[in-house]
């Protein structure tokens, strides 16, 4: 397939789409699918047929439109967005395409939730059909890859990424260009590998799932460009088995790309060859750590190993391996298309570009948002997120999942970027942002995350295996009002130990939720220990009835493992 032939396919698709005067798009990503959006789409198809609109109107299943809280979402020609649509609304929606929109279902789009976002990674989400490669091609898909492999040298491609200032979106924020050039320079025995880390293990994060479900070809294109730049010829996407829809769409996308010769041997007649295979995760949080992920792709238990050697030198099967996150790869095609210079103008001084956040918890507009780096927390939560529902008060924002921290109200005006978040004891993480109000007990939240880290600790290194268990016990003592002030000192000592002696990121960052809550919500700990009260009423209410169930739960999960 030559570039010209590819352009022809894109052109034909654009022509075919122009034939229809109207189009109705229905969100078929997992959020809306679980509110029966598939049935809505089928009902709309039937209505188009029934009302004799088959020649003028076409329905299309698309990826996530962002506002998951109001699903199923349907968008109609002319820009009308409908929320909470059910199959019985189909007739009215189809009948309205040539007149006025159905006002009772309208979802206002002139609100900050839509206006304040800047979409780069998600530009195709909710627009292209994730199951049709032609639709992606019509939206200039694969043009960046084509340019790279026919016009650019690998060094030139890396240079663009360096210029963009892009940093890894998986959490640690390592400069992507630097990682690429290290892998490019490393000598291989047989082949080099490029891996896409789609093991989105942070509870409360669903950005990667949404990108994979909404725009899988974008990720494949990013991987292809990376593979060309670093000289990799084999690739793996390591994706959680808990995401069946994302897996299905990825499989379809890989098959379609192979059929058009965009994956495989001698891509588009060049000397560049690259194949991608999917490897399923099996529910282990630690596999998000790159050396554990590599062990898992090799078919072993997902335990990390000491670094160096870094995967860039010795990774999968002992060969140089590039590992980037889904969102990082998804940023690559627009950087190539518009230039690194363009990308570096978005965002803050040290954190360039945009970041996708999964907004959840006690916030009015739950869903997926993409904002420029450096925006304030207040803008994300109160303007885009619509604030806290039921007239309650904001208490904390949790970013970075079990490796992150809780950010209190005093930092709401802080810019959101890698450095600022680290300064207040949290991390950017992969992009989960959970909003908590005064109904959440911060000690209970810290215990929740410690319980998570304890269960997910792989057990290889002792500080993490034993330390998380002991901390969970101590936090449990506090929530049961049995702790003494000395226990806090012990917790702090353990936090220090874990931070400095654990083998991998899981143990090193496990103290973050505890440390940040100890620092900013010390009075809540004090209330539990000294006055025997839970200010939020969480631990107090559960004291008498839920304890047996909770201890049974621990036994149960132990037995299952």
């Amino acid at each position, binding site marked *: 397939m030559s570039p010209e032939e590819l352009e022809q396919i894109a052109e034909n698709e654009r022509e075919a789409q122009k034939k229809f005067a109207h189009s109705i798009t229905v969100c078929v990503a*997992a*959020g809306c*699918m*679980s*509110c029966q959006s598939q049935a809505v789409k089928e009902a709309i198809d039937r209505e188009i047929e029934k009302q004799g609109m088959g020649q003028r109107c076409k329905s299309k299943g698309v990826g996530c439109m962002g506002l*998951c*809280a109001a*699903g199923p979402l349907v968008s109609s020609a002319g820009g009308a967005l409908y929320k909470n649509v059910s199959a019985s609304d189909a007739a009215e929606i189809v009948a309205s395409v040539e007149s006025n929109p159905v006002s009772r279902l309208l979802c206002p789009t002139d609100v900050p939730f839509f206006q304040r976002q800047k979409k780069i990674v998600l530009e195709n989400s909710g627009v292209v059909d994730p199951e049709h490669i032609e639709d992606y091609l019509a939206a200039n898909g694969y043009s960046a890859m084509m340019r790279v492999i026919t016009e650019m040298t690998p060094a030139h491609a890396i240079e663009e990424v360096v210029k963009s200032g892009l940093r890894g979106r998986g959490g640690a924020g390592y400069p992507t260009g630097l990682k690429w050039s290290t892998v490019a320079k490393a000598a291989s025995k047989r082949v080099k590998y490029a891996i896409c880390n789609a093991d*989105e*293990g*942070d*509870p*409360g*994060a*669903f950005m990667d*799932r949404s990108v994979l479900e909404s725009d899988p070809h974008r990720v494949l294109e990013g991987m292809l460009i990376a593979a060309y730049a670093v000289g990799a010829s084999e690739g793996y996407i390591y994706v959680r*088995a*808990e995401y069946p829809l994302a897996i299905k769409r990825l499989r379809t996308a890989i098959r379609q790309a192979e059929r058009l010769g965009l994956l495989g041997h001698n891509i588009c007649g060049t000397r560049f060859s690259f194949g991608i295979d999917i*490897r*399923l*995760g*099996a*529910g*282990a949080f630690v596999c998000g750590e790159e050396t554990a992920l590599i062990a*898992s*792709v*090799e*078919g*072993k*238990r*997902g335990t990390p190993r000491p670094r160096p050697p870094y995967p860039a030198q010795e990774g999968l099967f002992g060969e140089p391996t590039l590992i980037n996150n889904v969102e990082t790869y998804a940023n690559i095609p627009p950087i190539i298309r518009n230039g690194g210079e363009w990308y570096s103008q978005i965002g803050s001084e040290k954190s360039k570009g945009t970041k996708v956040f*999964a907004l*959840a*918890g*006690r916030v009015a507009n*739950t869903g*997926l948002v993409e904002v420029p780096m450096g925006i304030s927390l207040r803008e994300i939560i109160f303007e885009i997120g619509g604030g806290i529902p039921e007239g309650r008060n904001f208490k904390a924002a*949790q970013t970075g*999942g079990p490796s992150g921290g809780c950010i209190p109200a005093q930092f709401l005006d802080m810019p959101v970027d890698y450095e600022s978040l680290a300064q207040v004891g949290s991390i950017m993480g992969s992009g*989960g942002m*959970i909003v*908590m109000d005064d109904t*959440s007990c911060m000690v209970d*939240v810290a215990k*929740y*995350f410690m319980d*998570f880290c304890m269960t997910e600790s*792989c057990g290889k290194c002792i500080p993490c295996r034993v330390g998380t268990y002991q901390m969970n016990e101590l936090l449990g003592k506090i929530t049961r009002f049995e702790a003494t002030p000395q226990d806090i000192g012990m917790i702090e000592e353990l936090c220090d130990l874990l931070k400095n002696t654990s083998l991998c990121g899981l143990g090193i960052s496990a103290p973050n939720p505890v440390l940040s809550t100890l620092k900013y919500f010390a009075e809540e700990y004090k209330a539990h220990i000294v006055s025997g009260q839970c200010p939020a009423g969480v631990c107090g209410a*559960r004291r008498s*009835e*839920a304890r047996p*169930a909770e201890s*049974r*739960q621990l*036994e*149960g*999960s132990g*037995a*299952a*493992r």
Partner: protein
Amino acid sequence: MPTATGSDYAKPAPPDGQDKRWRIVDATMRRLGHHSRSLIETLHTVQETFGYLDEGALRYVATSLHIPMSRAYGVATFYQFFTLKPAGRHACVICMGTACYIKGAQHLLTAMANDYGIAPGETTSDGGISLLTARCLGSCGLAPAVVYDSEVAGKVSPPDLRAHVAKWISA
């Protein structure tokens, strides 16, 4: 470790040669060249096909991939997704992700414990209902989320949960 092609060894027999479903498992192993690195993929296929991994299945896979049983067992028990016990006729998976936790998923667990006496990982004595928890379903916008068999439901309250499970019992 020998990386034999299979012809050097006697081909192991599946636990139940009459069961044609083993052909699906064989096909996965063949596609991946009976290589030891294909262990996790193969176990996924076994679980997808039979619902769980029992000792016979683990032995068969280990022998076929020329790896020790200990390694197959180690992998099967390391990963939370794999289960060594058969599931009940219906499965109720409660998401325990952060967003669901903040929005009260633990009350759903309490409801199941009170009404049916089962904790996560357990099945009712009549084999009717299995209660499972998930780390995060990624449906945080719909918290708290529950998966009834394979159907995801959002914004679930304890009464919703009771009503749905009661329907299973009466059916």
